[in-house]
């Protein structure tokens, strides 16, 4: 790795880590309904929202079922709203380029994808969506889906923190409103102008026509891009205004905008772990979790940057410089932008899959086998900080799993934060975790044997397999990034990916909430010398091992057939692309 790459990685991580501490304390105050410095401005706004929602509703205490029911209610209604906006886009206002309605398959896939914080896109924004759709059906759920994840996490944290066996987790709508006003609103308002200043458009003019220097014309679509960019990253959403996502110069015009977008993705999920420690009253445990997640993240970034900077024998064979220097980036520049170079590209895409954003500033399909595999693995584990709320919850599921296994090994009653882990808990945690490989591997296998699945492949051989595996992993992890050579806009992929997205989101959340409800109702047991400590470095190591073992056992065969086979083929002596 070059010195410049090292410092770029180190500084991004240090700045994100540094910011996550104060933000974490702030999040904890927001979630524990404590006073925050913005209250004088935002309280009136909250009160107005409470009045519109209904005083009875916002003052009713809710148990886990209340959270689950209201989450489903709001999400279904919002999903339907998005679906019908897309379905009737042609008849709606602000459609200056006269885009037609989306077909029902694509509208379903898109609505399911955006209401679940996935942002998988089977369409190119600039050639499909009206400005109205971009605002009212894309930007809108970017706020609410991210807030939904946060609210679920808050409910679960409160369940772990409850000390008296009470069932109440709080109030779903109050939490939802507070997250929207206190976490998302202000950064969006303030950072949008910075992105515009850097070059991201923010206009209601849909298209500029340029008469080019050498003749001919160029039609340049644009729209309200910058405001979408901020919430896209802050909410770990990831769906681009344009097909090329954050590789597009209008979405991500400069290295500075790239850094801002990277940090926006990272800070709140990292801060959530710190907030968790304060809410459950065990900062040491939070530190253990934070360290394990950070370790996995650093490993991922370093491997991805090294792999991309290393280039490939194919590129070397085509006579391209493979080392950075002499005023060029070296490495694998296929599908990457000059202004970001190899390092900022690999950092961005790795962060995007770790934090399950799904935005890309370089095309993952053209990454080296190992560079692309890093993104794939992070989505398979789905807990390297992870997306809004759900990443931390997945990590806790593994923790409960680890406590159970460790307890069996040393013959102690498994306890987590003073709550006994018994059959019901371990069943729910297993279900929440196992649904993930199930909805990845089964549809992947199905797609690979069905002609309507194989016909969408953009590449052949093991890379083609990777494309399908990546698609379902991305859908199940609610990530949204893609090996984009796969044509997903067919009835089969629209429906199957849409269903995987919905199951991946709601089934696991409902299992987690049920687990939370069951833990909340348990009386806290006194800690004794016989208690297996979960807030030690030793247990952190065991936690990490559990994640890796479970992840490896479920996904290793898929990885061997895809990226690993490709890696060996690429570096083998006989090059299938022939010689010059």
């Amino acid at each position, binding site marked *: 790795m070059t010195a410049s790459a090292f410092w770029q990685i180190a500084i991004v991580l240090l700045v994100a880590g540094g910011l996550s501490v104060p933000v974490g304390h702030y999040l904890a105050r927001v979630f524990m309904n404590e006073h925050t410095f913005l209250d004088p401005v935002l309280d009136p706004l909250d009160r107005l929202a409470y009045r519109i929602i209904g005083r009875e509703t916002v003052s009713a205490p809710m148990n886990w079922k209340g959270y689950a029911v209201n989450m489903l209610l709001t999400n279904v209604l919002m999903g339907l709203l998005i679906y019908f906006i897309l379905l009737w886009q042609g008849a709606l206002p602000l459609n200056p380029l006269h885009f037609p309605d989306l077909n029902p398959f694509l509208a379903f896939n898109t609505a399911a994808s955006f209401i679940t914080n996935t942002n998988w896109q089977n369409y190119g924004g600039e050639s499909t969506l009206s400005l109205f759709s971009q605002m009212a059906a894309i930007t809108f759920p970017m706020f609410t889906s991210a807030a939904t994840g946060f609210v679920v996490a808050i409910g679960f944290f409160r369940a772990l923190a409850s000390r008296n066996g009470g069932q109440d987790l709080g109030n779903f709508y109050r939490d939802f409103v507070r997250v929207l006003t206190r976490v998302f609103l202000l950064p969006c308002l303030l950072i949008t102008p910075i992105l515009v200043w850097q070059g991201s458009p923010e206009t209601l003019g849909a298209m500029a026509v340029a008469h080019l220097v050498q003749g001919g014309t160029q039609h340049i679509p644009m729209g309200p891009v910058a405001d979408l960019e901020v919430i896209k990253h802050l909410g770990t959403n990831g769906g681009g205004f344009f097909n*090329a996502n954050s590789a597009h110069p209008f979405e991500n015009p400069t290295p500075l905008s790239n850094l801002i977008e990277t940090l926006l993705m990272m800070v709140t999920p990292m801060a959530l772990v710190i907030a968790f420690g304060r809410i459950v009253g065990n900062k040491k445990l939070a530190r253990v979790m934070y360290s394990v997640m950070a370790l996995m993240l650093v490993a991922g970034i370093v491997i991805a940057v090294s792999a991309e900077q290393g280039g490939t024998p194919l590129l070397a064979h085509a006579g391209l410089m493979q080392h950075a220097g002499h005023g060029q980036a070296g490495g694998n520049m296929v599908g990457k932008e000059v202004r970001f170079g190899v390092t900022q590209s690999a950092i961005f895409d790795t962060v995007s899959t770790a934090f399950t954003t799904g935005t890309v500033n370089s095309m993952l399909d053209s990454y080296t086998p190992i560079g692309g595999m890093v993104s794939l693995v992070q989505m398979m584990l789905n807990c390297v900080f992870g997306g809004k709320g759900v990443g931390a919850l997945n990590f806790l599921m593994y923790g409960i799993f680890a406590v159970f296994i460790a307890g069996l090994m040393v013959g102690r009653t498994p306890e987590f934060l003073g709550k006994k882990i018994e059959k019901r808990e371990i069943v729910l945690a297993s279900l929440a975790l196992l649904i993930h490989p199930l909805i990845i591997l089964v549809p992947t296998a199905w797609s690979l044997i069905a002609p309507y699945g194989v016909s969408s492949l953009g590449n052949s051989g093991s890379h083609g397999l990777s494309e399908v595996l990546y698609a379902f992993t991305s859908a199940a992890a609610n990530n949204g990034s893609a090996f984009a050579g796969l044509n997903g806009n067919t009835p089969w992929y629209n429906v199957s990916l849409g269903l995987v997205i919905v199951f991946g989101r709601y089934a696991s959340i409902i299992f987690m909430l049920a687990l939370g409800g069951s833990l909340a109702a348990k009386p806290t047991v006194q800690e004794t010398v016989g208690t297996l400590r979960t807030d030690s470095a030793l247990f952190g190591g065991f936690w990490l091992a559990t994640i890796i073992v479970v992840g490896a056992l479920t996904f290793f065969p898929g990885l061997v057939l895809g990226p690993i086979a490709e890696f060996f083929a690429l570096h083998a002596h006989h090059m299938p692309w022939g010689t010059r």
Partner: protein
Amino acid sequence: MRQYLGSAVRFTVLTWLFFGLGYPLLEVGINQALFPGPANGSLVRLHGRVVGSRLIEQRFTGATWFHGRPSAVHDDPRSSGGSNLGPLSPKLFRHLLARRQRLERRHPSLVGKRLPADMITSSGSGLDPDISPATAYLQAPWVARARGIPVAIVRRLVARHIRGPWLGLFGNARVNVLMLNLALQNAEHGR
């Protein structure tokens, strides 16, 4: 349950109006006032005519201009994207080889030389407005020859258009092809 349904409907409409319409329209208003240039696509005007966007690649052909990177979408901003060819793809290799041979035919001095990594690879957006300084300097001699101006002047022009990494560290040094070509045209008119 009925109480919750009513609340959920009202909440959905409220957040939709606020974040789906209010927030984007407010930002459009603010930014049109604050940064009208970039907010409208960083368009470049020459004699009052829009000749392109500073941020969007346009195709230059012939020896008298600097060339941008290959584009998987033929520089059409209406369908941005990369080639999405995998690292082992025979098609990727054929593309790279064809571009290389086209260059070598026109500039025999390139035969056997290693090219900058960005020069014949297509970008992620298909609209990358930049090339690396190495790619720009490599083109300087033949652009100068075709225009009949001293290489030193063209090289100085390239040097003046290099934008370094942010804070000297983040991202890569780059040269905006459109701005460089416009400056080149300007320099010739000025002579």
